[in-house]
């Protein structure tokens, strides 16, 4: 049995790579994919915990996380299409209507 710590370390690395991608990139689609990667890393943590503790809760949680991610992808990509139609670009810096 591979110790759960090894999986935790891998998922921590993947999560932080996702965070760095979301911070540094300006293309909205790549930011979106980085967020998906963070979700994926958290899912890996949950499955590891579930497998170590012989309990199904983490697996169920990942199941619902996947559902939410699919819904989010459908709506998010429709929003990206609208953004592109409006400004002809997907750079996140260009979308400053709310003065953020």
């Amino acid at each position: 049995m591979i110790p759960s710590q090894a999986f935790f370390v891998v998922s921590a690395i993947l999560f932080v790579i996702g965070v760095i991608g979301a911070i540094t990139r300006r293309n909205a689609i790549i930011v979106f994919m980085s967020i998906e990667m963070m979700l994926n890393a958290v899912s890996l943590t949950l499955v590891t915990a579930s497998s170590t503790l012989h309990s199904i809760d983490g697996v169920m949680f990942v199941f619902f996380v996947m559902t939410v991610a699919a819904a989010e992808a459908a709506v998010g990509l429709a929003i990206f299409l609208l953004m592109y139609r409006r400004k002809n670009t997907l750079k996140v810096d260009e979308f400053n209507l709310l003065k953020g």
Partner: protein
Amino acid sequence: MGILIAKWVVFIIVSLLAIISSVLMITRKSALHSALFMILTFVCSAVLYLLLGCQFLAMLQIIVYAGAVMMLIIFVIMMLDLKKETMFKTRITRTKIVGVIVSLVFMLLLMLMMGLNGIKGKAGTLASIGDAKTIGSLLFTHYLLPFEVASILLLAAMVGAVMLSKKKTMEGDME
């Protein structure tokens, strides 16, 4: 013993592949290349799920994430003309440097905490967490309410996506 060594070998190769492809994903200029490396990362994490003995979720990962979600993303990337985005060099600002340093420190802390402590808690009694039978029967008994809520969420997302992409084209026709 032989199985354990094989598991370690698979684990190390797959996790290195996942880390390398995710680093490539956030560094490639073209969004399409990023999406392809993202698929590789998802497949690698499906293999990690298999190593943890969770076959059903591994299949779901490949079908839903590497299949459906990434197909949607690639579809959108190909519909949009993102050539302009790849022309610009990514500016390195002070905010970004500070952000990267802070997240690396965060990673070190996470690895320290999780690597040292591992997980503690009351262990359950399930023999196998991976087969579709266990998950399915629990999904329709103990987790029935979240399941129904998830179906409503999916319906709302579907209607929302159709509305968002339809309304604009009608306005565009009128203009």
